[in-house]
Every structure is written in structure tokens, then in C-alpha cells.
């Protein structure tokens, strides 16, 4: 809380190969700020409480869209990789015959499945990072600024 300025500058600076510009035409930028505006509008109004602001942002379509995108990716992906991992562990302990079947040369099903776990982990990591960068980051950032702008004058 003490360092409001630090994150701001750091966020603006590209810091890795993930930070390409999001693909054009996705339209998150315009959608993001709109639904959140009402509380800042009335100048006569006494400053709203921070809790109300968070409530409003929480109910705004822009936030719901960010949350929906996050959950639509994360929950199915998590179920998939956990099931795949569990199947792998259970098969290793209950079906050694199947796992010992040769595939190519000295490599058998078990070995291939183990390496497959590595591969799927890398792939899912890449897919998640890409999804977050293209589908979520910009909208989330806009919401962050809007929210912080509104809470600046708010009563805690």
C-alpha cells in the first residue's frame, strides 16, 4: 500500500518476450472502462466508500467479462491436467503390465507417458501465458486503473 508508484511504472515497461502487443481488433480496450463509471460521475455526491466502489466494479460487465475469461480457461484446464496426472499415477501403480508395453526401442508406455506429462505441462504453461496476455491483461489493467482512480478519494 505504501508504494503506489512502483508498480505503475513497472507495469508500463515491457519486460519479456510475452509482452508483445495484443492482437488488434479484440476490442477489450473499449469494453473495459465503460461499465464502471457511475460513482465518479456525480461531483456533488459525497465521496463513496471504498467497499461500495469495489462492489460496483465487481458488478460491472467489464469485470464479469475478465472473470469469465479467467475461469473459462482455468477450470477446464485444471480438471484436464489433474485427471491426466491422476490417471498416470494410478496406472503406474495398478497397471504395470500395460505400462511396460514397449513403444519404440527401450521406450515403453510408462516412459512415454512420463515424458508426455512434461510435454503437457510445458504446453499448458505456454497456452495459459498466451491466453492471459491476449485475453485478460489489457482489460484487467484498465479495470485496475479505473478502480484505483475511483478509490483515491474514497472513504475507507
Amino acid at each position, binding site marked *: *500500500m*505504501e*508504494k503506489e508508484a*512502483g*508498480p505503475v511504472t*513497472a*507495469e508500463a515497461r515491457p*519486460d*519479456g518476450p*510475452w509482452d508483445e502487443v495484443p492482437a488488434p481488433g479484440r476490442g477489450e480496450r473499449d469494453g473495459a472502462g465503460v461499465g464502471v463509471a457511475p460513482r465518479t460521475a456525480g461531483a456533488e455526491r459525497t465521496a463513496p466508500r*471504498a*467497499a*461500495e466502489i*469495489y*462492489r460496483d*466494479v*465487481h*458488478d460491472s460487465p467489464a*469485470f464479469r467479462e*475478465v*472473470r469469465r475469461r*479467467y475461469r473459462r480457461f*482455468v477450470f477446464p*484446464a*485444471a480438471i484436464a*491436467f489433474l485427471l491426466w*496426472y*491422476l490417471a*498416470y*499415477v*494410478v496406472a*503406474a*501403480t495398478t497397471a*504395470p503390465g500395460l*505400462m*511396460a508395453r514397449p513403444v519404440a*526401442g*527401450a*521406450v*515403453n508406455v*510408462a*516412459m512415454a507417458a*512420463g515424458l508426455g*506429462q*512434461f510435454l503437457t*505441462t*510445458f504446453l*499448458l*504453461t505456454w497456452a*495459459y*501465458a498466451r491466453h*492471459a496476455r491476449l485475453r485478460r*491483461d489489457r482489460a*484487467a*489493467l484498465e*479495470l*485496475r486503473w479505473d*478502480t*484505483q482512480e475511483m*478509490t483515491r478519494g474514497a472513504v475507507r
Partner: protein
Amino acid sequence: MTGDHQTLALLLFSAFVAVTLFITTWVGRARQGSAEEFYAGGRLFSPMENGFAIAGDYMSAASFLGISGLIALFGYDGMLYSVGFLVAWLVVLLFVAELVRNCGRFTLADVVAARMAERPVRTALGASSVTVSVLYLVAQMVGAGSLVALLLGGTSDAARSWTVVGVGALMVIYVSFGGMRATTWIQIVKAVLLMAGAVALTVLVLARFHGDVNALLDAAAQRSGHGKDFLAPGLRYGGDWTSRLDFISLGVALVLGTAGLPHILSRFYTVPTARAARHSVVWSIGLIGGFYLMTIVLGFGAAALVGSAEVRASNASGNTAIPLLALDLGGGEGSTGGTVLFAVVAAIAFATILAVVAGITLASSASVAHDLYASLRRPGRRKYGEVAVARVAAVGIGVVAIGLGLLAQNLNVAFLVGLAFALAASANLPALLYALFWRRFTTRGAVWAVYGGLVPAVVLVLVSPVVSGGPTSLFPDVDFQLFPLENPGLVSIPLGFLAGWLGTVTSPEPPDEAKHAETEVRALTGAGAA
């Protein structure tokens, strides 16, 4: 182990200690302690730096020596550890890293307590975090002790005990003088060393087989004495149903435990934003995945080049497979190359243990000062600065870990680590996930989730074959064993989730909708993040 090895290994190890002490004093100069600085290192590390530091925090000696050793002895069954340790990072990446960075300031309890009555939740999570950390610490200390005994010759108990004391004292110095900034740099140095060592050995192994992995596997299967069975599951965990269930229990604990480890979670606070936290996890998954792939090559390489029987003769649990492999790759016993490689590997293993120990000590001192002291301090008593308390706590935890490390010297390191993972998954993970994703979660639910996972996990371990009733138990002479599995995860993790649910639905207070809205907005957007 000849004198040459020892001298060179000691020299290299002293160099590492000197470098890290220099780092500690260098980054600690003229930075007198804000909590921000001590716990989070100023929050301005880059994703790449933090990714290396996370990898350094995670790849303990148990990974480097333990997994390769298990593969050298049991072939495929050892590889299952590598897979579990890596896949666990997906849980961290998808559910934890960004949201924790956005919602918390220094510890795990920050995230959960933000929605709840602060005091009981903080106390519960502080207690469970310290318990997990101390167990993990003891594992590292035990590992340090046996490593010294094995690598520097002289299996005398005195040498072991002094190593444990020395390692403990060093880490307390690192942590209390350097805080998070020094600890992070030590992790980075260690991660680079460890990766370089692993890459060098892997290249040498593959070069020996002219890059033909098939030939490597065939040779490993042949020299292991098990033939083709060596490459398939079942050598270690293929016995009765108890051992199979035990393995599944371990597998579940490994994959869910990482996301509840306090010293891993606190690493996300050292970067400026949630996006940087995500990128650091991507870096660390790349590093950790590459490293575990190499441990597989090294394990099979040790089986093929050194031979399973020789590995077992040197150390019954396989911990010396990698040093022996290094000796062989360098040209064998007595050659200069062998001596140098052996010493380098030994020094890297020490560096690994030291760095991991420093990371955990820092995280647990944060739990003591930021969570336990802050919530248990009697109002009206004199209030000490949080950082001062954390420094004292680091010393206290160091003493406790040294004491337990001396007591537990004969326990298996990999087992202790598995236990710490099971505790983290049972006590910390349910509360964390509920707090982040469940609208109706209440204070009672949070407290029940923590104790409902922690207490069964600890009790089940106490009545397990690890403590009593078997030839390899801590107390082989008495028998109060009631629970057949060594790892409690399969039972205690669901109990933790169940207790959290039960506490929430029986809770008389309504859930705080406004706080939930705030948590969700902050978690996903980063608004108001520290």
C-alpha cells in the same frame, strides 16, 4: 573418498559461502529494515530473476541427489517424483501466483485474512505455515548432515552434528542480516550453479552414449540387474495395496502441496505486479522442468555407468548416485577430472541445501512476525518493530530446526519432504483456494479448514509406520501404529477441504459479500495491490 576430493570440495564450498556472505553484506548495506524491504526485497525483482530464485527455492538437495538416486536404484519408479514435482507448478500457475500477488502483502495469511475476522485466521495460518516450514527445514538439515558424512568422508556423528549446526547458523546470518533481497540473490546464484552442473553432467552422460538415449536406457536396464523391469513401474511401489495407496497418496500430496508452501508463496511478493508473478512462474517451470528432465538422464546414467549395486553399496537410499556418476564421468577414481567433477558436484549440493534453508527460514520468520506476533501480541504490551521480531524469529526457528535436525538424523530426507508437502496441501491449500474462489466462505470455515487439515495430517503421521511399529520407524521398539500409510495426504487433504466446507455451512455469521467482492476485484485486476 580421498583427501583430494575433500580439500577441493571444501574450497569450492567455502568460496560459495564467501560469495553469499558478500552478497548478504552488499545488499544489506544501508538498508535498514522496512517490512517491505525485509520480507519482499523491495518488490522490484524482474520476472527472470524471480523465476531463477523460485527454481532455486524449489530444487532442493532432495531433488538433485534424491530423485536421481531413486532412479538409479529403482529405475522408472523414481521418475514418478520428477513428474509430480513439475506438474504441481500448474496448480501454482493457474490458481495461485497472480491472485496471491494481487491480494497479499507478505504472507499466505494476508490473502485469506483480508476477507475474515483477522485475528483467528492469521493465528491459524501462521501456525500451520510455521509447522510446514519447520518440517521442510528439518528435511534439509538432515540432508545436509548426511551429505557431509557421505561426501567429505568421516561418517562420524560429530561431523554430522557440527554440519547441521553450521548450516543452521549460516542461514540465520543470511536471513537476519540480508532479508529477502540477499536471500533472493543467493537463490539465483545457487540456481545458476545447479543448472550449470546438471547440464554439464547430462552432456557428459549423453556424450558417453554418443547421444543415443536408447543405448543409455538399454545399458541402464542391463546393469541394474532387473532387465526390462527397470524401465517400467513397480520395482519400488509394486508390492501390496498399502504400498500402492501410499504411492498415490504421495503423488496427490506432491501435486497439491507446492501451492501451499509458504516459502514459495512469499516469492511472488518480490515482483512488482501479478503479470510479473506469472512470468516468473513461466520462467521457473521452464527451469524446473528442464532440470527434472536432466535428473532422469542422470539417474539412468548412474545406473548404466556406475551400476545400481555400486550405488546401493555406497548409500542405501541412493543419495550418492550423482557424485559417483561425476567421479566416473571425469575419468574414474584417482584421475584429476574425476576429482574435480566430484568436488564440484559436492559443492553444488551444499550450496543447494544452504540456499533452500535460507529461503524457508525467511518465510517462516515472516509467518511468526507478521502473522503470529501481530495477532497474538497482548494489547498494551510494548510493541516491537515487526522486522526486529522477524530477525529474532529467524534465530529462534534456526535453533528449533537445528535441534530437530539433530534428533531426526536417521529419517529419510525424501520422506520428510513428502510429509511437508502433505501438510501444506492439507492445511494451507484448502483455506487459500476457498478464500480466492468461494463467495460464501466465512471466518469459521477458514479456521476449520486450517486446523481440519493440519491436525489430522499430524496425528496420522504420529500413528503411521514412520513413527512406530516397524523396523525403519523412528521408535522401532514401541508399537502404536494405527494408520497403514506413510504419507497422510490421501486422507488429510480431503479432510481439510471438508472441514472448511463444514465450518462455512454451519457458520452463524453471514459471509461478508462486500469483502468478497473486494477480494475478487483485487485478485483479478490488481487494484490496490501492495
